[in-house]
């Protein structure tokens, strides 16, 4: 309504609002929004999957999102949630952006986990050794330096001074041969490094603390006393018990992958979900903000549930009755 010219009289504006459904009671508006979000948009998602995606493209086109228009005598798409900035359906934009975010942030999360678990295990096993001291110091530094400082710092070092890596993530880059794949890899290194530093710091601290808690327990002495090899004691008995809190931390961190790293995406120009959210906020694009935050909310609930279920799998004492 903000774009309506000032010359339009107030009563006409009021009629326009009512025509848009703004006069309806709140619960009606809410039900309509639910219908839009949970019934209409998934239909378009299924359509897109059966038409364009690699995985399900071989299926016949479902055309669930189409309705028959009696006036035009043909199938037309249903009304969708429209972004105020771009005037295109919001879910289409979100689906365009998600691969960028998943590639960069998800890869960084994986790399972070793969680095942090061994560091955490070994520094707990050799408590107060030099490795532990340096590991603790590095994770502490990674924990303390905010990404909006590490980002520019790495850009200055690796792309300005040394000139090895590009400083901006080129989203339009298409991978079709070896050279372009190498370029894609090189442009992903910096953002992945920045994000992985954070993940590594956080998870290896948890891993170390929870290993330390378990290493002094009685069952570890029992396991050693009955003659198990040291590797089996640490990697099977202790590790499995100390993974319980760490798995929760890892699972609870997954929604933040989909949420995107707002700051890192901003620094390196990755146009993922986080960047979409912040541009939508600056542009006052309320439908877009609502959709993205609602997707975050669903993700968070789902992964909390997954973390709870994993608890039960890892620790048979925990039962949900």
């Amino acid at each position, binding site marked *: 309504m903000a774009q309506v010219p000032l010359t339009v009289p107030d009563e006409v504006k009021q009629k326009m609002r009512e025509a848009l459904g703004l006069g309806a009671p709140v619960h009606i508006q809410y039900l309509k929004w639910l219908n839009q979000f949970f019934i209409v948009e998934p239909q378009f998602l299924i359509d897109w999957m059966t038409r364009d995606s690699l995985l399900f493209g071989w299926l016949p086109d479902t055309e669930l999102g189409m309705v028959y228009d009696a006036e035009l005598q043909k199938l037309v798409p249903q009304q969708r949630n429209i972004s105020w900035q771009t005037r295109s359906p919001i879910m289409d934009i979100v689906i365009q952006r998600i691969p960028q975010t998943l590639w960069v942030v998800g890869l960084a999360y994986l790399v972070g986990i793969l680095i942090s678990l061994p560091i955490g295990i070994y520094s707990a096993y050799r408590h107060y050794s030099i490795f532990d001291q340096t590991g603790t110091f590095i994770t502490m530094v990674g924990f303390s330096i*905010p990404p909006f400082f590490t980002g520019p710092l790495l850009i200055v070092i690796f792309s300005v001074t040394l000139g090895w890596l590009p400083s901006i993530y080129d989203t339009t880059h298409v991978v079709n041969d070896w050279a372009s794949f190498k370029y894609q890899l090189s442009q992903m290194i910096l953002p992945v490094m920045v994000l992985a530093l954070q993940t590594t710091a956080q998870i290896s601290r948890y891993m170390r603390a929870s290993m330390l808690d378990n290493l002094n327990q009685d069952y570890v002495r029992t396991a050693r006393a009955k003659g198990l090899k040291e590797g089996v004691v640490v990697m099977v008995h202790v590790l499995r018990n100390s993974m319980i809190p760490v798995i929760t931390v890892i699972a609870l961190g997954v929604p933040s992958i989909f*949420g995107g790293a707002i700051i890192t995406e901003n620094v390196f120009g990755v146009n993922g979900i986080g960047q979409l959210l912040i541009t939508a906020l600056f542009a006052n694009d309320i439908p877009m903000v609502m959709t993205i935050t609602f997707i975050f909310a669903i993700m968070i609930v789902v992964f909390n549930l997954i973390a709870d279920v994993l608890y039960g799998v890892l620790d048979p004492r925990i039962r949900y009755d």
Partner: protein
Amino acid sequence: MTDTEINTDEMEPYAALQDKEPPKAPRNQWLDVWDQFKKHKGAVLGGGFLVFITLAVLLGPYIWTVDPQKLDIRNKDLRPIWTTIWDSSAKILWHRPFGTDNLGRDILANMIAGGRASMAVGWTAMLLSLSIGTAIGVAAGYFKRADGFLMRMTDLFLCLPILPLLLVAVTLFRQPLRANFGPEGGMFILIVVIVGLTSWMQTARIVRGEILALKEREFILAARSIGTSSGAIIRRHLLPNVVSPIMVSATLGLAVAIITESALSFLGVGFPSDFPTWGKMLADAVPRMEQYPERVLLPGIAISLTVLGVNYLGDGLRDALDPRIRGR
């Protein structure tokens, strides 16, 4: 019978039970804590740096009396004085030790003023989140009826992603708060309240756990048996016993608040543009960091070192306050 009666007054105690030396005077537990704390080098350094930076931003404006807002366009883009070590042709002035920015504002004065904003936000948000966290933790641990509801609420708040929430809140509430409290005051209230409201959950969980364990101990039973009211039990007997976990989570809260404030300023939704903070100085310097890397490095290092110091302080406090580790 009188002959065989044992005179208990003159009987020697068993030799093995005798003290070889006179008993030592009892030590205050905080002295023990301090002894353990001193062993943690990083914690002492971190705590020292935090004290230094707090004093520097508090007393700095009285020692370095340059106005951070004053424009001196003729002396813009000065390099810091240490640039002369490797580059004798660099443009420097000795009374601008950290150089000036692209509008000729003194960077040292800006660093001090920016630090004031960051530390003020950090300390206030930390105190707010501590008081909320302690109150909710105590209530949930002590009053069984409130436990379920309060802990579910804590779980709910734990799920909130802070940065997106802050961004949404800033867009929604910026205008009314600015109208009522002025541009700086409004932003300060907004950031402090939101950081405080989204970071109390860890404190609440830890405090609740401690209170649940303490509540069943004999001294609480004794206090209740002589008719102490719930409020007095909480104030006199429970709170002093949960001071140590509260102190540890206080340091974490301070670090989180400082980083969140800088991140907001970096994204350009924090304080108004003429109000220097470390995050904003960093953000402003990023486009020209090839020519003037020190303008990125100085505020960045200030933020990082402060947060690092706070984190190390928290680590050392945790070790020092845990009696199981003490003496190792």
